[in-house]
């Protein structure tokens, strides 16, 4: 805020030579003013006029220039006004008294002004330090990363203290011929170092040591503690998430391992009994086989999921017939023919994908559909579509069940690991892993998997797999699957120029 007399008592006065000029001018002005005043007051009392000049000068430029102004004023007063005028002698002894009193008063006034000026300078420094501390606190305590905030904070510090440069390090740094180092400590432990250039004036160094370093130590200690706590918060959150997954896994494993194990154990014990009909033996053996398959699938799924979550599911792509993959998936699921209706277009183009992963994806979606279809057959349809934008097109596999469907709010959630749609009649046999795995593997192969459903009317899971130009023509079956530089072009159809070098 600008003050009308801001230059008075300012810690940064105008240059000294300006002061000298101003002092001489003021003394001159006072001398002139005294002339008219002599008409109305005794001249001896008019020395007080010069005090104005002395106060003004000493308040602005300090005691020394103030004293000089006082002396100059005394000389001018004596020369121009005290009789005998025109020389520096004084005839009347009372005039001596007036002159001496004036000089003493002027001297006192300038030293009072000087002391006040010093106080003002100190107050200004404190204010700046307070500003600096507040800003440093903001920089060091608010930011996301302490290390990133340190250079800014150091620059701000250098600017405030008028140093050419400064650095705050979180390590112990030794001073050398070009640098002065201030250790920053909290108790016995070293927090870091404040480094300033070697040429810094002694006064500033003292000020740094006495006023800046303690504040910086407190700030840095708080900032480090805060960063530590933040790290712990992040770590705790990660652990808690891992814990949730682990608990879900345990629950899934508890139910999904025990149920088939119970069936196998019970069927095994039943088989050992006497007096069974051949038909019953055959049935019990079927129970054991089917439940064993189910267990094996669960183990596969657990492994797949951990692979996907660890990012270790790098697909080994080759030219793959979707029809073969679907049929292999149906084989793996076992069960009756009547559970499925298949409609796969003839001469579907091949897709460039990892057939094993694709099969895992499709098995899981088929198993899910069969589980929820309430005994109705699940329909599997596959066809190729050209992209409207003139791109490569897609191969689309739709798996349609006639179960209860999925409420809109759960459409995406069904792809979360361990999520099980808890709708009535849906059964509880899924592990909650299958769809997560299906989506994981589909996406790993450049495709997409989503679900459409109207509650009450079943659900349709849709795979979209990108078609790659090289096999748009027929006859690509013979293409060697393990060509070494076989890189797929852009996995998404119509996605701009391809990257082949």
């Amino acid at each position, binding site marked *: 805020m600008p003050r009308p007399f801001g230059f008075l008592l300012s810690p940064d006065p105008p240059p000294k030579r300006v002061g000298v000029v101003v002092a001489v001018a003021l003394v001159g002005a006072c001398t002139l003013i005294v002339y008219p005043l002599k008409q109305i007051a005794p001249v001896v009392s008019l020395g007080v006029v010069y005090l104005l000049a002395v106060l003004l000068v000493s308040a602005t430029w300090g005691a020394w220039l103030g004293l000089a102004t006082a002396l100059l004023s005394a000389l001018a007063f004596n020369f121009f006004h005290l009789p005998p005028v025109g020389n520096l002698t004084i005839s009347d002894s009372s005039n001596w008294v007036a002159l001496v009193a004036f000089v003493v008063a002027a001297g006192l006034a300038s030293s009072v002004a000087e002391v006040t000026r010093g106080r003002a300078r100190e107050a200004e420094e404190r204010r700046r330090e307070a500003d600096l501390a507040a800003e440093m606190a903001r920089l060091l305590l608010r930011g996301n990363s302490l290390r990133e905030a340190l250079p800014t904070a150091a620059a701000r510090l250098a600017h405030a203290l008028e140093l050419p440069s400064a650095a705050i390090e979180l390590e112990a740094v030794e001073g050398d011929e070009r640098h002065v180092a201030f250790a920053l400590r909290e108790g016995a432990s070293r927090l870091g170092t404040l480094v300033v250039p070697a040429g810094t004036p002694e006064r500033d160094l003292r000020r740094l040591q006495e006023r800046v370093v303690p504040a910086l130590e407190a700030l840095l200690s708080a900032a480090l503690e805060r960063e530590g706590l933040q790290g712990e918060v992040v770590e705790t959150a990660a652990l808690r998430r891992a814990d949730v997954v682990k608990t879900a896994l345990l*629950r899934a494993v*508890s*139910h999904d391992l*025990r*149920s*088939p*194990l*119970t*069936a*196998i*154990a*019970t*069927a095994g*014990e*039943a088989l050992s*009994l*006497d*007096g*069974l009909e051949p038909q*019953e033996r055959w*049935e*019990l053996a079927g*129970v054991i086989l*089917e*439940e064993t398959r189910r267990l094996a699938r669960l183990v596969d799924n657990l492994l797949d999921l951990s692979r996907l979550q660890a990012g270790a599911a790098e697909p080994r792509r080759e030219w793959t017939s979707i029809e073969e993959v679907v049929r292999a998936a149906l084989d793996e699921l076992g069960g009756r023919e009547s559970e499925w209706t298949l409609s796969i277009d003839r001469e579907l183009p091949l897709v460039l994908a990892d057939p094993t992963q694709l099969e895992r994806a499709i098995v899981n979606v088929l198993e899910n559909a069969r589980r929820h279809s309430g005994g109705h057959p699940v329909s599997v349809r596959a066809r190729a579509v050209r992209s409207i934008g003139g791109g490569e097109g897609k191969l689309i596999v739709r798996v349609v069940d006639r179960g209860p469907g999925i409420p809109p709010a759960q459409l995406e959630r069904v792809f979360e690991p361990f999520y099980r749609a808890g709708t*009535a*009649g*849906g*059964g*509880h*046999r899924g592990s909650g892993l299958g769809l997560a795995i299906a989506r994981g593997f589909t996406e790993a192969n450049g495709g997409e998997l989503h679900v459409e459903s109207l509650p009450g009317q079943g659900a349709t899971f849709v795979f979209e797999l990108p078609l790659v130009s090289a096999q748009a023509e027929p006859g690509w079956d013979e293409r060697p699957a393990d060509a070494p530089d076989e890189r797929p072009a852009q996995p998404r159809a119509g996605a701009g120029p391809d990257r082949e070098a």
Partner: protein
Amino acid sequence: MSPDAPRILVVDDERQILRALKVVLREAGFEVVPAETASEALDRAAVRPPQAAIVDLVLPDGDGVEVTRELRKWSEMPILVLSAVGDEDQKVRALEAGADDYVTKPFGTRELVARLQAALRRAGRGSEEPVLAVEGLEVDLAARTVRRDGEPVHLTPIEFDLLRVLVRNRGRLMTHRALLSEVWGPEYVDDIQPLRTHIARLRAKIEPEGRPRYIVTDPGVGYRFSF
């Protein structure tokens, strides 16, 4: 299968388990009434009441606790619950809803059959039977006397009441809450610690050295008087 074989309602949504259990129970002399859902189970039980029920806790349209509660509304038949959850809370809920016992999946069929037979025996026995005498222990509920190897044992009133409740329900798994409610009253059902203390004192007086033979702990769930 004899025409008067006890009819057992078996409720499990795992068709394969149902199929295997049917054979096992038939060979043990029971007739199985299978049901895959809670509502099917309640329907079948209502049409022709079975002598006992085996109920899986996880069902597609509800849970076994609910089935147990519904059956208990009109029937005293023994109910065994099957739990795949390994979760004590759920067992306790089922027992509090009126189940007599539970078996954890995967179970041995011999154990299942034994528990089922025990539960049926208990149900057929009737509740008024003033004197119990098993291997060295004699409890006269009417005279409130207890003898071990012929020697009279002095029990405090609370200890005797505990023993009486356990003996009356022998073979049946009694939850902590059930015991507390019967002996101390419904307002004390959460004070498990005093129950432990009294069980320990009772055991010291009636059990032989070493492993408890009569009062068996089911950790986290309760106690049963086995015989």
